[in-house]
């Protein structure tokens, strides 16, 4: 077994059988982080001591025959997911010294399953962005090309998994924040159905869209995580009561008979030529595996970006009202309350967060509410209905994850609208609440990763994972390691 570099599947099995100790696995990854994170900046906090203590406990207690499903597997957790006693910042100055008094349900479940948290990963501030360049602590770098963005907002988790600093990553996806960085970093990223995974302990951005999802080298590894984190949680009233199946058992390698919808009209608009070529090749490979390609129309998906940015900023402006310098986080010292609020928020939030708070407040304000926010919610209904109609005829919808390969750091930071367009293919599944996965689809010139996005029916993550797994068996791209050079 290669350490670092092995899959979660291999590590769990090796530790369960006593062929490797959790401690040696943990050390191999901590060493890798120490050797590479100066150039990658995937982590905001490395919890080495805590990780080694947990690994030692696993090694001391590992006598039972029923090994938990993620025994000894090192995980990186996005820094907007709370861990009790571990600094959690959402990559914002306003939470720079915040230490949560409780852990997110996903973290509790992973740790109960034997996973070992190595640390917290960098992201765009409050998960608002597509490149990690909005982090208050500086951007992460793409392990395949260090001068390029790893994607965002969960770019730190994606870079960490791709660079073999961690075996698994947790991210959050509001409009593409797990899938797009997975695409940029050449790994698997799954956004589960809205409600599939508890959000208790996730720092809220846009509550009708936010969902936690896994980043992994393989679809099998992502399935192992989903098996652990999916399911109803009494602490999150929006978590769904539907029973979660065994996602690993669903990986049959079989794509025969599946009907895959291709919304060709959407692809006519501004897709990079290499992305389009690789996407068409991926469709060819699926057909060779026995899937049928069917043209579908998603006529309202082209309005996805404006609808998403109206809805998400409105919700964000409301969610972020809690950061007022009173109960936690940064406070600007002022003599009167109103000035304290206003300056705390001015100095605590970064440029993009303030931009979105103003935009969201604007679209919710009297006189504009109906024209912008209500209208966006109505078009959201039409986007959802388009998918419902498509899923009467097909099992999955395929698109590129991102219209471009990873872009250069600095290239889009001054033009927010240009940055928003990076999410053009990911936001519609978010608005419709549907599960979607990004799986490697090959490399554009310069050896830059490109991802294939598959969107499924509500609660049908199993089919997405099955097809992604089948693609991997054909192409094996996941096993290639990035160079960590420019």
């Amino acid at each position: 077994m290669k350490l670092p570099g092995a899959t979660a599947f291999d590590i769990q099995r090796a530790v369960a059988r006593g062929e490797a100790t959790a401690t040696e696995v943990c050390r191999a990854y901590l060493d890798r982080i120490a050797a590479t994170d100066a150039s990658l900046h995937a982590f905001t906090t490395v919890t080495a001591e805590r990780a080694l203590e947990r690994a030692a406990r696993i090694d001391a207690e590992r006598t039972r025959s029923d090994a938990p499903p993620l025994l000894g597997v090192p995980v990186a957790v996005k820094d907007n997911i709370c861990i009790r006693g571990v600094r959690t910042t959402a990559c914002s100055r306003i939470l720079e010294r915040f230490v949560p008094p409780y852990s997110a349900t996903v973290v509790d479940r992973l740790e109960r399953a034997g996973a070992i948290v190595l640390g917290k990963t960098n992201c765009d501030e409050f998960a608002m962005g597509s490149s990690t360049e909005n982090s208050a602590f500086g951007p992460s770098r793409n392990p395949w090309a260090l001068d390029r963005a790893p994607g965002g907002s969960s770019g730190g988790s994606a870079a960490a998994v791709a660079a073999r600093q961690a075996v698994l990553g947790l991210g959050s996806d509001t409009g593409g924040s797990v899938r797009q960085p997975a695409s940029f970093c050449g790994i698997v990223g799954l956004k589960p159905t809205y409600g599939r995974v508890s959000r208790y302990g996730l720092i809220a951005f846009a509550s009708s869209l936010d969902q936690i999802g896994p980043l992994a080298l393989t679809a099998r590894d992502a399935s192992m995580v989903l098996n652990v984190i999916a399911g109803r949680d009494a602490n999150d009233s929006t978590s769904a009561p539907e029973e979660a199946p065994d996602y690993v058992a669903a990986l049959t390698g079989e794509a025969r008979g599946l009907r895959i919808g291709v919304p060709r009209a959407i692809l006519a608009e501004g897709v990079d030529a290499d992305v389009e070529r690789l996407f068409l090749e991926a469709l060819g490979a699926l057909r060779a595996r026995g899937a049928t390609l069917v043209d579908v129309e998603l006529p309202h998906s082209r309005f996805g970006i404006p609808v998403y940015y109206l809805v998400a900023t409105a919700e964000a402006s409301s969610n972020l009202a809690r950061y007022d310098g009173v109960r936690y986080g940064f406070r600007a010292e002022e003599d009167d309350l109103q000035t304290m609020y206003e300056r705390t928020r001015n100095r605590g939030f970064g440029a993009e967060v303030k931009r979105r708070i103003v935009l969201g407040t604007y679209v919710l304000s009297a006189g504009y509410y109906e024209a912008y926010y209500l209208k966006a919610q109505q078009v959201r209904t039409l986007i959802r209905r388009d998918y419902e109609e498509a899923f009467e005829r097909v099992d999955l919808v395929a698109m590129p994850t991102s219209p471009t390969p990873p872009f250069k750091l600095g290239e889009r930071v001054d033009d927010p609208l240009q940055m928003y367009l990076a999410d053009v293919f990911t936001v519609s599944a978010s608005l419709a609440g549907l599960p979607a996965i990004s799986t490697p689809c090959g490399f554009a010139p310069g050896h830059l990763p490109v991802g294939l996005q598959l969107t499924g029916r509500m609660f049908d993550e199993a089919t997405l994972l099955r097809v992604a797994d089948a693609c991997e068996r054909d192409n094996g791209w996941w096993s290639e390691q990035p160079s960590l050079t420019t």
Partner: protein
Amino acid sequence: MPSRLTTGEVEQVARLAHLALSDQEKVLYARQLADILEYARQVSEIDTREVPPTSHALLQQSIERPDEPRPGLARDEVLSNAPEPARGTGLFKVPRVIG
């Protein structure tokens, strides 16, 4: 829908959000938000008569639970992140509210 925003409008909206902005920020955001809103105007072309709004992607019934008292977080833990807890009182401290 307006396609231009004045710095005064940006300031007014920011005030609703309890957010102070520098003069530079007001100018920058007025321009950038106008661009974004101009781009968003395309949604106004769509006929949405009779279309109900989607506020939430899961359209099932609300989930209820019995209203039973449970222990919450310990008070000192809750106060441990406060920028200025009023020590020994179990309270948050804020600047004077009433003159």
